């Protein structure tokens, strides 16, 4: 296996099946990660409160407190920590619930080792990249909108919003390339770290959501413009018409 650029990352492994936990612990440690194991939901929250982690691998059917509750409580405290749900529950309702509660990825058992390791790497890569691009400019304003990339909060006029990390990443990438055409493929590569499961339509769905949040009229976008069959472009030219200067802090 290749050398891992994220070696040293701290992973909280929440899994009550001892045999499986041992195997996961061994593999993650072999990849260079520092693994801390929790056997139940309560212990996971205790460990999370006492230590710093870069990623959480979370089972759902856990003693005392299930994985959904753990994800929810962790999300309240740390909106940015990547959470990978690893569970035997493969139903669409469970998947949606897990993702709605803030999990970044959902992998069902039995899984392939390589796939799990790649997903973890991808999540850590995105986390690192997001940290890098937001560290120097955590706040950005355009029109009546203000986005705080550090805590993923936003304000559109008087309305307050909580963004998901992916929404923030799409927006950040468009803003960083303001005035330049960004293709769907590029967004997939940069934000989704190219996943075969994600289609270009997913990008369009995210754009629709962002327009709904920040455009005065989502049907006629002035900030996030479509370039027919090519991609999207972030523009603040419209504000010149309003004779308002965008502020950056």
């Amino acid at each position, binding site marked *: *296996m290749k050398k891992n650029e994220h070696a040293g990352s701290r992973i909280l492994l929440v899994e*009550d*099946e001892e*045999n*499986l936990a*041992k*195997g*996961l612990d*061994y*593999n993650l440690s*072999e990849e260079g990660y520092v693994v801390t194991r929790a056997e*139940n939901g309560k212990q996971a929250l205790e460990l999370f409160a006492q230590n710093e982690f870069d990623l959480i691998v979370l089972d759902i*059917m*856990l*003693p*005392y*407190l*299930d994985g959904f509750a753990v994800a929810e409580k962790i999300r309240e405290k740390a909106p940015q920590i990547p959470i990978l749900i690893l569970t*035997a*529950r493969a139903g669409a309702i469970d998947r949606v619930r897990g993702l709605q509660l803030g999990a970044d990825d959902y992998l069902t*058992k*039995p*899984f*392939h*080792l*390589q796939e799990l390791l790649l997903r973890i790497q991808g999540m850590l890569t995105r986390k690192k990249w997001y940290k890098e691009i937001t560290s120097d400019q955590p706040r950005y304003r355009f029109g009546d909108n203000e986005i705080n990339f550090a805590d993923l909060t936003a304000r559109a006029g008087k309305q307050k919003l909580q963004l998901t990390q992916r929404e923030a990443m799409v927006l950040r990438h468009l803003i960083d390339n303001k005035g330049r055409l960004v293709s769907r493929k590029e967004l997939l590569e940069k934000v989704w770290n190219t996943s075969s499961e994600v289609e270009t339509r997913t990008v369009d769905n995210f754009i629709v959501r962002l327009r709904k949040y920040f455009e005065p009229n989502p049907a006629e976008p002035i900030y996030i413009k479509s370039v027919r069959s090519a991609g999207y472009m972030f523009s603040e030219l419209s504000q010149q018409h309003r004779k308002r200067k965008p502020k950056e802090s």
Partner: protein
Amino acid sequence: MKRLRFLFHPVLVFVFAQLAWLSLLGLWIYWYVSNYIIFNQVGDKISPQLISAKTNILALIGGLVLLLAILTGMYLIFIYLNRQLNITKLYDNFIANVTHELKSPLTSIQLYLETLNCRQVPSSKQKEFFALMMKDADRLKHLIDSILEISGLEKKRIAYNFHLYEADSIIKTVIAESVDQFRLEEKAVRVTGSVEGQCVLDRDALKIVFDNLLDNAIKYSRESVQIAIHLAHTPKSVIIEFRDQGIGMAAKEQKKVFDKFHRIYSPEIPNVKGTGLGLYWVKEIIKYHGGSISVSSEGLGCGSLFTIELPIYQASKTHYMNRLLKLTQRRKKQQGAYHEKE
């Protein structure tokens, strides 16, 4: 609209339908009786042939029979549908419980196989991985066996091996084997009392009963396991009291714990994994032995007391016990004949 939804519950719909039919029947009889005299009088005047007493009585009885047939039909359909609904619920529980129980060991085996395939694993670790895989394979085998055994038990196809035993020694021996299997400390399980008399038992089935009770006591004990087993007898039965210091159960759960696929979900208790088949299996085995099992608990955190009652041979259910012994003999003969043919 949600408030009115209860009106469409199958039981309520069935009761309304039955009431409607019975009201119709009552009205019809009332109408018939009250108009019978007038009919007769008017009919006699208009045309004496119009009213024939014989035809009327036949029509009345025929009508009643038809109505009763319809009522019976509706009742049978209702019973059948209700059973189907219960089966669907059981099926959902089965899928939820068993899928997880099957997937977990399978995931673990797959993970170790892929690990051994992708990495240079040192030989000491390899041995550890093989041992873990064997453990998971055993777990899968145990699960599949129990599902098949229960299916056989329900269809009365199970190949039981009943023999007459001295109750005291066989029960104590089987308990000791189970305790040994779970590697419990000696002081964790205390056996007191004794019984007199003989019982018709299947040794292996009895072990399944104690294995399941011990397994539950271990899984549902927060700290160290403490089990007290007391043996006693009445003139007709052997009584085994199995008391654990586990988390116990609420009163409403006590009736349901022996139901197939029933699991107790509560945030106050550890979310123990399982199929929901263990206690159902125990109940079916005891029932097949002509005995009974019940549970009592003073509530959450107060432990549970399982009481098993088994009939003493020649003192109770003698006919049934003899039948069990005969079934075992017949099966052995059949097996012998089959082996000779081979």
